[in-house]
């Protein structure tokens, strides 16, 4: 019974709870059991809030019995990257250095999912300070891949992807600066979206890079992501970068039809150096979409390497500013990867930083004009290889850090600089049974089209339904 509950998606379980075929307490209890069972295997949680979650679930059930209005997430247990503030509660940002940090404010996204009725199951592991794409964490232990615990989970929203894949929660909020939703989603076989910069409020989240940070959902399916994004998106007077553009009802626009849509495939950069398995999955995904009526268009795209470097520049400088005081105070206690990548930021001339930001509007307009003047969405891999093992990728020295970062985020970071929405969708598995993901990129604020394409693909494939197996998970 519990197993079958946990294999439902977010939208399905919300319908089950609303229609009283199952109670939120039953669902939450099952999710908590699962979370506690898989935690020793994958280390995806920093804290599990058993008692508070069960009480909230009982309250949710009571509200239904009394006929009170229910939101789109009513009674559904979710868990989130440990960087969303809730006033008075500890938010670690994945670092032992913040073990007693109790913010005095609540993140707008946390308020919105609570208003929509979600149950907060616990706080999820993450790369320390959201600052590496691998999931390494020296403070709370590394979060391990849901499919093979010798492999990295991807990061920085490592726990989010792993907990969703492991059926320990139905969806999760993560954050994406250079790929932090998309990379772990791809590495663990779940769906995740980096929304357009400005689509979702960043108020009350631990900052990584102000100019690039976004909040995005990870879930089992495109439809589940669509529901969660609609809940959290929209203008926020507390975040001046949020857009006033209306938020579409994404779910209503999912009709399974992509005939006539043009899917762009970059001729340069993104498909360089792929492993054979990733290349095969991309080819098969394109064939699948073509069989559904999409037109595949190959085209060159404006220099992604430059965009990658500019994103690095902005990220390093802003991170240096954010971490300067802590770094001075804690010094060698800082994790190697973060310390290494921040250090350059202290030395970059202010003019170079402003040059990069000044060029951003123009480079975005050029990219959008060139690419989306020819195609409706762009398709790339998320990672050029399946998730590597810890032994393969863990840096030994500072000299190992930057090449590792560049390799991990080469397909995701260029779109972060442009601020474009990007959806990571499971698109196959490797011979070693590790998930492989594809990335769909769209025009600014056109998340609806990405969802439409991703959902149409998922209706005809089953990659999003695969679940990792654990020995003795309960």
């Amino acid at each position: 019974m519990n197993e079958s509950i946990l294999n439902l998606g977010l939208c399905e379980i919300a319908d089950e709870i609303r229609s009283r075929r199952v109670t939120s307490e039953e669902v939450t209890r099952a999710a908590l059991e699962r979370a506690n069972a898989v935690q020793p295997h994958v280390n995806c949680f920093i804290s599990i809030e058993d008692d508070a979650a069960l009480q909230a679930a009982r309250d949710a059930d009571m509200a239904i019995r009394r006929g009170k209005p229910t939101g789109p997430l009513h009674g559904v247990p979710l868990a989130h990257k440990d960087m969303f503030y809730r006033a008075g509660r500890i938010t670690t940002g994945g670092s032992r250095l913040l073990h007693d940090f109790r913010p005095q404010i609540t993140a707008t996204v946390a308020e919105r999912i609570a208003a929509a009725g979600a149950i907060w199951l616990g706080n999820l592991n993450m790369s320390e300070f959201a600052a590496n794409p691998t999931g390494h964490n020296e403070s709370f232990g590394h979060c391990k891949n849901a499919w093979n615990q010798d492999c990295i989970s991807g990061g920085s929203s490592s726990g989010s992807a792993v907990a969703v894949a492991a059926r320990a929660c139905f969806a999760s909020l993560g954050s994406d600066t250079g790929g932090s939703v998309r990379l772990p989603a791809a590495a663990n076989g779940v769906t995740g979206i980096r929304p357009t910069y400005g689509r979702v409020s960043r108020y009350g989240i631990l900052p990584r890079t102000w100019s690039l940070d976004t909040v995005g959902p990870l879930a089992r399916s495109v439809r589940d992501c669509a529901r969660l994004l609609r809940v959290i998106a929209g203008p926020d007077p507390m975040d001046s970068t949020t857009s006033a553009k209306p938020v579409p009802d994404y779910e209503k626009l999912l009709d399974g039809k992509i005939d006539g849509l043009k899917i762009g495939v970059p001729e340069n950069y993104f498909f360089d150096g792929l492993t054979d398995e990733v290349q095969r999955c991309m080819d098969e995904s394109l064939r699948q979409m073509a069989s559904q009526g999409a037109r595949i268009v190959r085209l060159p795209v404006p220099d992604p390497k430059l965009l990658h470097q500019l994103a690095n520049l902005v990220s390093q400088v802003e991170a240096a500013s954010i971490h300067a005081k802590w770094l001075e105070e804690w010094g060698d206690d800082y994790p190697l990867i973060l310390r290494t990548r921040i250090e350059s930021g202290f030395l970059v001339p202010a003019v170079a930083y402003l040059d990069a930001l000044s060029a951003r509007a123009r480079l975005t307009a050029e990219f959008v004009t060139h690419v989306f003047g020819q195609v409706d969405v762009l398709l790339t891999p998320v990672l050029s290889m399946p998730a590597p093992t810890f032994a393969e990728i863990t840096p030994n020295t500072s000299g190992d850090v930057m090449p590792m970062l560049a390799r991990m985020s080469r397909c995701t970071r260029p779109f972060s600089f442009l601020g474009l929405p990007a959806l990571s969708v499971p698109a196959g598995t490797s011979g070693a049974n590790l998930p492989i993901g594809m990335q769909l990129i769209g025009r600014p604020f056109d998340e609806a089209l990405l969802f439409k394409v991703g959902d149409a693909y998922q209706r005809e494939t089953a990659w999003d339904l695969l679940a990792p197996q654990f020995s003795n998970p309960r």
Partner: protein
Amino acid sequence: MSSFSKSTETDMPQQGEAASIALIRLMSAELRNTNLDDRRAAELAADFREIVAAARTAARNNDFTDEPSRYLAVLSQLSAGGIAPP
């Protein structure tokens, strides 16, 4: 076989890199009161050169009206199918 290469020994800087390594050492000492060892100074200098070169490339086509805050407005303009003026 891993496709990730790790450093196994300290790479010695080329002649032309010496100036930027010296600059990095100086800035690190002045701005952060930190003395870098040879290897780290060389790594940072390489990173620094790449970043500054990217900024220089990007700036080549910037003009004085390109203030960073235009970015959010341009994102909005691009969303409706219209293309923002370069």
